[in-house]
């Protein structure tokens, strides 16, 4: 039998305030198997850690429980300390008595009792923990960068410079992203192209960077250090090695298409080059708008090409590569302006977006750099800029501040002034936010210009006046309604993650945070890493930001990747699934079901074999096995049963009177609901202490026995909660769990029992409030229903 040590942390007053820690330590010392039990002010401090290490050695402990904050905070710290005392780190478990106990229950007696039960359940788990050792994998030194805007370019250059091979994948036919569309940049007013094109050329010339334009990443398989990627490159039909860029094909092409690079303000041909400095320097044939690759249908461009660079027989290709890490820089798009009904649905051509204005004012843009109205080409004398178009409007549009609009609007107004010296500009704003080096000074200069009138107020409507665009707004400083007529209106549209980000995130298991931007592993301390190990993030895919910040993040992500690649191998968590060869008969059901293709069947031995590298430990396969031959390491069925027993107090009789206190067993997945429960603690959102959490990697590991065991042994309700189906790190796992639980519920129903005692809910890490409220309601419901008749439930098989 293991000799277990329990260390109860006060966390100053954070735990000790609502939990009688001394009593907890004393009570726990009586528990079966506990050889040592103490409490201390700060376990995570150096003396605290020393206390643990010394005890392991002196008391000859085989396992330790640290009753403290959430494992997401200090599990790593304590496991390291355990390891340094010579104990296998997986013999250290955390009992979360802060976020999920002392911070959410303010009745000290109840809090103390719950803390004791939480610790007991962890002790029962620990008793059966195996010794585990991290799996080590050799790393591939190539890197995939997705998206070739300024962030992707910077990251690729940094990594290429360090001598690693980079595959830079871009959806569009050119690199440079939105930055290459900009006229000038704030606050220095230096030309965007002039500072970006040298970097673009560098990308093209760097031997370490392999560029894939017109391409998208189809799939990424494997794990950190060893990803297998598939890149789908759309056929370009023009061989860039032969194409001289003469442009004869463009003149021959009869088709006209709105030009995406010019934001739809002018037209291009179906065969085209987006702009003269384009990298890679070649023409693109846009198959969607081409009359047909069949020479009978058109074929004029092929005839015109003297170099024979056009080949209609090319097809889309799939290119397979191996990389060790992935950097995602998928950038932003503008908030769709047709969503803002009162600003004209995009039905008025003279209402333009911020990016369209950039093109209009650009020296070689669609209007040749002259300020002309898109509707009729008349000169623009009066102009209005509307800040926060779509931003900071939680009720209807985006709740977030898009951060760069105040600055770019001031820049655009200044540029307008340079182009039209006698012109008049109105700038409507809610607040001016200009936090950045030299930003405030830039704004102040703009505001002191007599011809740039800053109006504090939101525009309520834009409509067609006599020949001009009429604007109604309320000036909140003078308290008067203001109606002006202008030639053109520029909407400083908010920033949203580039269209398709949600789907992209689902495909590659990246988590999505508020406002639908991708989320970082930690908003402050791990700003360029993803929770999906091996994925790094930079730039506006994470949230609105300006160019300097984007570049800094890109370099940050690159350096993170470089430190990963500095080692020849990476370590992988050993919490995976194991096979009981005795029980397994090699039927192959698990191999069929595995999301990550991690299971193969050994045909000779007739047994399933788990690929340690590929298995992510989600244990999705566990309930699939008809022979119960699969278990998750260190969270076996028996461990789950023992934990439930500890919580419910095995053998206790349920009091059937009005003072009945219901107990709920919650199976929460680590990503999503468990984080929500922790966050409820951080926010001190009080809920009833009847709730006991069993953390699982994914709820798809739960089978009928796990769920029913709790109720059969006296729990009043079971809450199973995973991350939202679209956000789970294990694709399809949440939905599969739902399918399984639904079938269990209908079975319960047909047995004439109340299936509402078992609930399935989705929670994302951010939904702390929702979680706390739900739990309370559930307790209330169970109180109303009264104690469970476990005997009847035991008849269920």
């Amino acid at each position, binding site marked *: 039998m293991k000799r277990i040590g329990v260390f109860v942390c006060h966390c100053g007053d954070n735990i000790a305030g609502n939990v009688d820690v001394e009593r907890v330590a004393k009570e726990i010392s009586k528990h079966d198997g506990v050889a040592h039990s103490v409490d201390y002010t700060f376990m995570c401090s150096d003396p605290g850690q020393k206390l643990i290490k010394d005890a392991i050695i002196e008391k000859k402990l085989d396992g330790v429980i640290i009753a403290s904050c959430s494992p997401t905070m200090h599990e790593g710290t304590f496991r390291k300390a355990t390891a340094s005392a010579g104990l296998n780190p997986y013999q250290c478990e955390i009992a979360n008595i802060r976020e999920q106990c002392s911070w959410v229950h303010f009745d000290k007696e109840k809090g103390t009792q719950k803390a004791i039960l939480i610790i007991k359940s962890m002790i029962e788990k620990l008793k059966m923990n195996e010794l585990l050792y991290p799996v080590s994998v050799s790393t591939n030194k190539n890197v995939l960068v997705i998206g070739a805007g300024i962030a992707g370019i910077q990251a690729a250059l940094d990594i290429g410079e360090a001598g690693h091979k980079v595959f830079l994948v871009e959806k569009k036919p050119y690199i440079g992203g939105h930055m290459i569309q900009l006229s000038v940049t704030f606050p220095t007013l230096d030309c965007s192209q002039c500072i970006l094109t040298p970097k673009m050329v560098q990308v093209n010339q760097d031997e370490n960077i392999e560029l894939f334009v017109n391409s998208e990443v189809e799939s990424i398989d494997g794990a950190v250090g060893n990803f297998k990627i598939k890149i789908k490159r759309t056929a370009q039909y023009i061989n860039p090695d032969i194409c001289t860029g003469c442009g004869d094909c463009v003149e021959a092409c009869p088709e006209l298409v709105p030009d995406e690079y010019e934001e739809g303000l002018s037209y291009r041909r179906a065969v085209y080059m987006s702009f003269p400095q384009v990298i890679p320097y070649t023409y693109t044939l846009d198959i969607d708008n081409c009359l047909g690759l069949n020479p009978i249908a058109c074929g004029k461009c092929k005839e015109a090409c003297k170099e024979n660079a056009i080949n209609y027989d090319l097809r889309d290709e799939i290119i397979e590569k191996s990389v060790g890490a992935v950097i995602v820089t998928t950038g932003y798009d503008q908030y769709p302006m047709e969503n*803002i009904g*009162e600003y004209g649905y995009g039905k008025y051509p003279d209402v333009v977006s911020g990016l369209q204005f950039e093109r209009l004012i650009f020296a070689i843009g669609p209007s040749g750099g002259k300020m002309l109205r898109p509707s009729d080409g008349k000169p623009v004398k009066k102009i209005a800029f509307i800040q926060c178009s779509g931003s900071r409007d939680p009720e*209807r549009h985006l709740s977030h501040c898009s951060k760069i609009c105040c600055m770019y609007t001031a820049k655009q107004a200044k540029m307008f002034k340079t182009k039209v010296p006698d012109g008049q500009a109105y700038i409507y704003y809610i607040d001016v936010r200009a936090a950045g080096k030299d930003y405030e000074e830039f704004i102040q200069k703009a505001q002191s210009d007599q011809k740039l009138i800053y109006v504090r107020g939101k525009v309520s409507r834009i*409509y*067609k006046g006599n020949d001009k665009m009429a604007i109604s707004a309320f000036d909140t400083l003078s308290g008067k309604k203001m109606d002006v007529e202008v030639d053109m209106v520029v909407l400083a549209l908010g920033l949203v993650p580039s269209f398709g980000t949600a789907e992209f995130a689902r495909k590659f298991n990246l988590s999505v945070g508020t406002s639908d931007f991708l989320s970082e592993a930690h908003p402050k301390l791990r700003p360029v890493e993803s929770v999906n190990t091996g994925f790094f993030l930079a730039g506006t895919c994470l949230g609105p930001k300006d160019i300097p910040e984007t570049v800094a993040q890109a370099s940050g992500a690159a350096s993170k990747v470089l430190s990963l690649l500095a080692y020849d191998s990476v370590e992988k968590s050993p919490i995976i699934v194991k096979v009981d060869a005795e029980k397994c008969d090699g039927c192959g059901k698990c191999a069929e079901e595995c999301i990550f293709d991690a299971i193969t069947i050994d045909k000779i031995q007739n047994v399933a074999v788990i690929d340690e590298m590929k298995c992510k430990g989600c244990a999705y396969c566990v309930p699939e096995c008809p022979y119960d031959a699969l278990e998750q390491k260190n969270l076996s069925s028996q461990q789950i049963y023992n934990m439930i027993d500890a919580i419910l107090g095995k053998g206790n009789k349920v009091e059937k009177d009005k003072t009945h206190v219901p107990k709920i067993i919650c199976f929460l997945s680590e990503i999503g609901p468990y984080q929500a429960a922790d966050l409820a603690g951080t926010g001190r959102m009080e809920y009833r202490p009847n709730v006991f959490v069993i953390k699982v990697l994914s709820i798809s590991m739960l089978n009928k026995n796990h769920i029913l065991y709790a109720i059969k042994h006296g729990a009043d309700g079971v809450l199973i909660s995973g991350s939202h189906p679209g956000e789970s790190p294990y694709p399809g796992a949440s939905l599969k769990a739902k399918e399984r639980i639904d079938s269990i519920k209908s079975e319960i129903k047909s047995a004439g029992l109340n299936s509402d005692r078992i609930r399935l809910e989705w929670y994302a890490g951010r939904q702390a409030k929702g979680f706390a409220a739900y739990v309370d309601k559930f307790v209330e419901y169970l109180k109303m229903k009264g104690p469970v008749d476990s005997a009847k439930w035991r008849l269920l098989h």
Partner: protein
Amino acid sequence: MNLPYYPGCTLKANASHFEDSAIKALEKLNCQLQEMKDWVCCGTVFSLSNDDLMLQLSSIRNLLRAEKQGLNELIVLCSMCYNTLKRSKDFITDDKEKLEKVNNFMYMEEVDYKGTVDIYHLLTILKDRITFETIQDKVKKPLNSLKLGAFYGCLLVRPKEYAIDDFEGPTIIEDLLSALGAESLDFAYKLECCGAYQTLTQKDVSLKRSYEIIRSASRAGCEAIVTSCPLCAYNLDFLQKEIDEEQVDFNKIPIFYFTELMSIALGAGWSSKWSELHFVDPEQLLRDKHLL
């Protein structure tokens, strides 16, 4: 198609031409308005003033009686009735506690309200059930050359949960008018408040609002304004007398209910009785356009 119908008080008095024209126009579309029995006042502003259950009783009594008569929906013409009934419905639906309390108040009704009656504005029915395409096909006398401004006021589109169309940029009335062959023009004040009941207590407020709305429509080139709200119609139409006296640059324009124009376009004609209920003469304009 039979449409269970709640008229409301104004449609039986000052706005009887609204009801009359609706019945006539809908007949041409093979639809009959079937007035529910025993209806009472919709509650008007009182039921909107706060969430006091007492003030919702009048609206909910209508819903209860409709339910008792076996109706699962009510079609409403008046914007105010539409808004109050629909809001009261949502106010108690899904809230068993409130529903129970309200039912206790209405014990004289013998049955309890269960919350099964839906509320629709006629415009929604025209758009979704009858469709503007069908209407367009049945137009006998297209309103060619008539330049109209659709005026929504507040109650069709606010609060946004009860909007019958996009609440910032609605086009449902314009789409109907286009189907009837008219030209509808956008103008700035089409979603503004007409001053509503302030016309009784602070008339100058309503005068100012109405003046601004009509001026905005005129400037956009509208020859008449079209609405679905008796209160808006009253303010915009009858206040023009005083506005005309006060403002030098003002030209009077007629105010129509959308159903009046439907009646003309669908071949059900115009009635001189309707003209009597207008302040600004509508007939002159219609004659000018050869629609009478």
